[in-house]
């Protein structure tokens, strides 16, 4: 990633990849030599349904600017309905984090099958751009700034 196009801000994005699809797509993108956004740190999970919302909370409070979840297309889930749960959780989570002043766009869920290396690249590049436009989240710093430490 060249530094002139980053506008001084290089977002940190955590990606949770289902091992049956998106992780394989990432692998395919790698072996096909497709350049993909270097801002995304991928974590392999057994299923997109394994991504507990507290993982996403953890990512944000430890300095991530965005969280991406990659799962299988509907009907393709290795565990039948893990991706449905992941979708419902993400939609609810987006509503909850909005109340804390976190833009819902900072969490994105997408279905990427094992053969869709190009979709993987396109989605992650797009998402990195979205986060770059939103700017840094800095929730770790926000948690440290507490009024009671100043007073008395």
């Amino acid at each position, binding site marked *: 990633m060249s530094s002139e196009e980053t506008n001084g801000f290089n977002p940190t994005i955590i990606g949770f990849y289902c091992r049956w699809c998106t992780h394989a797509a990432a692998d395919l993108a790698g072996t096909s030599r497709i350049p993909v956004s270097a801002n995304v740190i991928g974590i392999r999970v057994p299923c997109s*349904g394994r991504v*507990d*919302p*507290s993982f*996403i*909370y*953890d990512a*944000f*409070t430890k300095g991530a600017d965005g969280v991406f979840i990659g799962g299988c297309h*509907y009907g393709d889930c290795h565990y039948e*309905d893990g991706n*449905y*749960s*992941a*979708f*419902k*959780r993400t*939609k*609810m*989570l987006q*509503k*909850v*984090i*909005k*109340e*804390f*002043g*976190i833009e819902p766009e900072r969490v994105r869920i997408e279905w990427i099958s094992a053969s869709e290396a190009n979709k993987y690249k396109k989605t992650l590049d797009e998402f990195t751009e979205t986060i770059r436009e939103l700017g840094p989240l800095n*929730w770790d710093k*926000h*948690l440290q*700034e*507490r*009024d*009671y430490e100043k*007073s*008395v």
Partner: protein
Amino acid sequence: MSEEKPKIAFYWAASCGCCEIAILDLDEAVLDVAAKADIVFWPVAIDTKYKDIEAMPDNGIDVTFFNGGIRNSEAVHLAKLLRKKSKFLVSFGTCAHCGGVPALANLKTKDQILERVYKTTPSTVNPEEIYPQTSFKVDEGEITLPELLDGVYPLDNVVPVDYYLPGCPPPKKWILAGVTAFLTGELPPKGSIIAEEFALCKECPREKPEKHSIKEFKRTWEVMNIDFEKCLLDQGIICLGPATRAGCEARCITTNYPCRGCMGPAPGIIDMGAKMVSVLGSILEEKDETKMEQIIDEIPDLAGTFYEFTAGKSVFLRRKN
């Protein structure tokens, strides 16, 4: 026990006062406590001044029961003062433990709250935009007010806490268990939460199926023929039981009101909202994408429901902007 009676103090910060009533609700047991201990500080019931506490030696109070969250600089001062003067500091009630209902204000910033209260509420007339000040000069001298903090904080954020008595208010049996432990000297390990060590569903008497499945979420008044025996989640009512610590004997649920999480997060749960999102995500049956979105959009005030009592303990803590 020595010939001198143990000294007990009670204090309230950002709370509604029901924790004090819970103490009086111990009925005749409160007389036993009063007979065995001296109450040295209790602003709601006896006339003592802050300077009386300041004059006491460090560790001069045996136990302080502190209820209410930390909302302003006065509460910060008292929390630090009482910590210094007490051998044991007990976080009493949900507000001191998790922020409680006042901590719902953490879903708004301090400026948003002040603007709403002093400017934009329909009943407010404030053309000069007068906001509360921390100090004001009058002929007689300067008068001061405590400063509002940027959020509501649980007591243990500000000072170390020895024991927790959760609940809104804490159930009688756990207050008695706690007080008895102090009077007899058989204390649990420090940092203990004096309640059960499992989630509320285990204690709840309602029938729960092997696998829950719900088609839509309903508000309590939308369920006309409520089933007294069946799990409330299965009837479409959002109940925080799966994420809440047990110990209240399902006192709301037995009266057909869903759990709102006053006992705080169950063991192993770091955030009520995150866990409830996880729970509801797995039991909602719908599999059509647009319908899923529609059902979720129709739930009113998700964050307010999930964090009704525990916003102060949430991982995100308070709104940013």
